[in-house]
């Protein structure tokens, strides 16, 4: 009865709001109100406070003094797709359904990127060597819940949302949006670079993670090779589409000429090309796919080394939807030129593989940042009403890769790295102070300014093999224990004798009967008992080398999530303590022998830990009333700025 009354009351309120000026579609009470939000992915409150105290970030300092600076509670787990989804929807993962970078299909246990799914056309017809689709394929955004900009646009408040993560493909709406993290390259991957050389790089299992190596011959100063594009699904057996190119190397000087079908590019050794458009012909004269890439001629003599960026979707004519309206990406291109459309453009994988040096990576990351900065300046010049959200990825990606150079506790720390690159993160933060300053100069006193990050940062010194721990403790059985370290994606697992498994960066799943294909644990009491047992044991794991606790807290999904999608979450979310993270191998179902290993990878900073280890930042030019603001408070706060009520399924509240 109480519920019925509440529903009627709510309906009455909603109906009455339709007659209040400002709540009708197309009108607003806050015509003059402007809100600017700058999102610095991974900006850390401890580093920021230190630099403010040292007088190195005067603009941030001024904003903090005139308004407020607080840590911003991140999501659990503190992974960007999860955290930004909290921000976008005002919900926790139980409401928006994004629990990790990686989810698994419970039917097949196959992993996939959590935020989007691509489907091929269901109906095709074969004619000779050609396969013609009769229905369109589609890409689907898997994040649930209404974004704050959809709600604002419904009230007639114009919004621009630039490169926001967890919004690919961009949700259909009237706002101007450009998708960010989660946007693939032309191959449909999350970034695959190409490396051409006559010298084979060091590779694991003869392959480069996140890249492709093409061994080339240098004959008479000439190299012939191909840029490999998407699969040509119009042809039988779907061969790779490609564009041939040659490199002519000057015998005397360290220069080369890259010859493409419709252009030539001259590069000195160590030089990067501008963005270059390439066309992959799928059906001659009828169907092309357009991409953009940059060439880096790393070496001409004595060896040949050429790096090519992942081939990005061309913003002029993207093969997949990346903006709303669809012409918005073209408008950006027409004003700033080509830019990285791929989410998280910094090529961390090329550095990890040794294809890039630290210096190469810094150059490439700076180019990616410059593209963001060009977009930022263009968007600021357009910003005269409503809301502008702008996202910067650099603070996250450079902190991942350069942490080892400023923190001597890192197993990957080297003195020479400290001397050359020990101040990269600090200098980057200082650049962001200038970035913020540019915005403050542009906006008027009616503008509310928010500067925020989705999470902070911590060292990633030790990697923990969660699946190995489950194996050692009898929760996983292998078909052939002598092949423990072989295969991945749980290939050697005897599911009929396995009770739990880890997948993704913080997820632990119970092998549930009726949910997993060969589940053996019953829902209800048996599951609950097992979850409790695992939580207790996980929280008591001690690293034998350091004597430190590995897991700060293991969270039961029921305790931290609410909403329609709780049942799809991992059964336990593992909150690693500072310094620890899931191992590279365990996240995709491998079983290295060692339980805890030193992380000597260049990827040396991280945040996939317990949420209270890595809070984000929040600064505004207003005084925050909430003691501990959280990411899911941001959407209700932004709505409140424009006098709009929050949605009933939002768990957060306005911070004022």
């Amino acid at each position, binding site marked *: 009865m109480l519920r019925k009354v509440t529903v009627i009351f709510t309906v009455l309120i909603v109906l009455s709001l339709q007659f209040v000026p400002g709540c009708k579609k197309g009108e607003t009470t806050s015509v003059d109100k402007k809100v600017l939000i700058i999102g610095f992915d991974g900006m850390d409150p401890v580093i920021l406070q230190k630099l403010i105290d040292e007088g190195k970030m005067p603009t941030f300092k001024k904003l903090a003094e005139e308004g407020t600076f607080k840590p911003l509670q991140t999501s659990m787990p503190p992974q960007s797709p999860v955290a930004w989804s909290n921000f976008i929807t005002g919900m926790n993962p139980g409401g928006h359904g994004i629990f990790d970078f990686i989810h698994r299909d419970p039917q097949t246990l196959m992993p996939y990127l959590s935020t989007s799914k691509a489907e091929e056309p269901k109906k095709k017809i074969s004619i000779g060597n050609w396969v013609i689709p009769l229905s369109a394929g589609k890409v689907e955004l898997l994040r649930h819940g209404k974004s704050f900009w959809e709600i604002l646009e419904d009230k007639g408040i114009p919004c621009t949302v630039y490169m926001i993560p967890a919004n690919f493909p961009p949700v259909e709406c009237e706002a101007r949006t450009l998708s960010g993290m989660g946007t693939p390259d032309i191959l449909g*991957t*999350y*970034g*695959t670079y190409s490396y051409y050389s006559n010298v084979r790089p060091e590779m694991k299992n003869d392959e480069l993670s*996140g890249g492709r190596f093409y061994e080339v011959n240098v004959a008479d100063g000439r190299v012939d090779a191909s840029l490999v594009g998407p699969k040509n699904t119009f042809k039988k057996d779907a061969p790779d589409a490609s564009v041939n190119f040659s490199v002519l190397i000057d015998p005397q000087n360290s220069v080369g000429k890259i010859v493409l079908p419709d252009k030539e590019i001259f590069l000195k050794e160590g030089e990067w090309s501008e963005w270059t458009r390439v066309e992959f012909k799928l059906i001659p004269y009828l169907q092309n796919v357009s991409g953009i890439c940059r060439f880096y001629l790393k070496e001409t003599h004595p060896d040949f080394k050429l790096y090519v960026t992942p081939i990005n979707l061309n913003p002029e004519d993207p093969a997949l939807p990346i903006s709303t309206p669809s012409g918005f990406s073209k408008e950006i291109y027409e004003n700033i030129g080509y830019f990285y459309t791929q989410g998280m453009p910094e090529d961390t994988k090329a550095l990890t593989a040794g294809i890039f040096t630290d210096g190469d990576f810094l150059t490439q990351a700076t180019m990616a940042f410059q593209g963001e900065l060009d977009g930022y300046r263009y968007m600021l010049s357009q910003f005269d009403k409503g809301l502008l959200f702008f996202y910067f990825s650099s603070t996250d990606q450079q902190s991942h890769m350069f942490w080892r150079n400023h923190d001597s506790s890192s197993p990957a720390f080297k003195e020479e790295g400290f001397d050359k690159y020990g101040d990269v993160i600090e200098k980057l933060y200082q650049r962001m102070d200038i970035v913020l300053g540019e915005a403050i100069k542009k906006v008027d006193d009616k503008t509310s300014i928010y500067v925020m990050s989705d999470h902070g940062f911590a060292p990633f010194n030790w990697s923990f093999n969660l699946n190995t721990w489950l194996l050692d403790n009898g929760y996983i059985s292998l078909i052939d224990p002598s092949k423990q370290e072989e295969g991945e994606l749980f290939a050697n697992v005897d599911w009929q004798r396995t009770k739990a498994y880890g997948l993704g960066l913080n997820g632990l799943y119970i092998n549930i009967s009726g949910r997993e294909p060969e589940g053996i644990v019953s829902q209800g009491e048996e599951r609950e008992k097992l979850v409790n047992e695992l939580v207790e044991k996980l929280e008591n794991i001690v690293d034998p080398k350091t004597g430190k606790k590995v897991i700060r807290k293991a969270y039961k999904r029921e305790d931290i999530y609410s909403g329609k999608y709780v049942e799809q979450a991992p059964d336990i979310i593992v909150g690693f303590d500072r310094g620890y993270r899931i191992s590279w191998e365990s*996240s995709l179902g491998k079983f290295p022998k060692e339980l805890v290993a030193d992380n000597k990878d260049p990827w040396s900073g991280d945040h996939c830990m317990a949420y209270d280890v890595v809070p984000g930042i929040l600064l505004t030019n207003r005084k925050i009333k909430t003691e501990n603001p959280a990411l899911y408070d941001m959407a209700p706060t932004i709505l409140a700025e424009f006098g709009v009520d929050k949605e009933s399924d939002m768990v957060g509240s306005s911070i004022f």
Partner: protein
Amino acid sequence: MFGGSKIKLDSELLKKVKKYSDIAGYSSVEEFITHAIEKELAALEDSDSEEEIKKKLQGLGYIS
């Protein structure tokens, strides 16, 4: 009998299979089951291989 192998079906399921193979115009129960299995396999073969899935995810940086 399928290519020399036998499979067991629950009696209730078998009843349904018999009923619907007639309705759908299949000439035999075997033909209906073979078609259903082929359709299911085609859907699985269309999806990404393990190798392709791994390649797609590697660019994330967070995994190797």
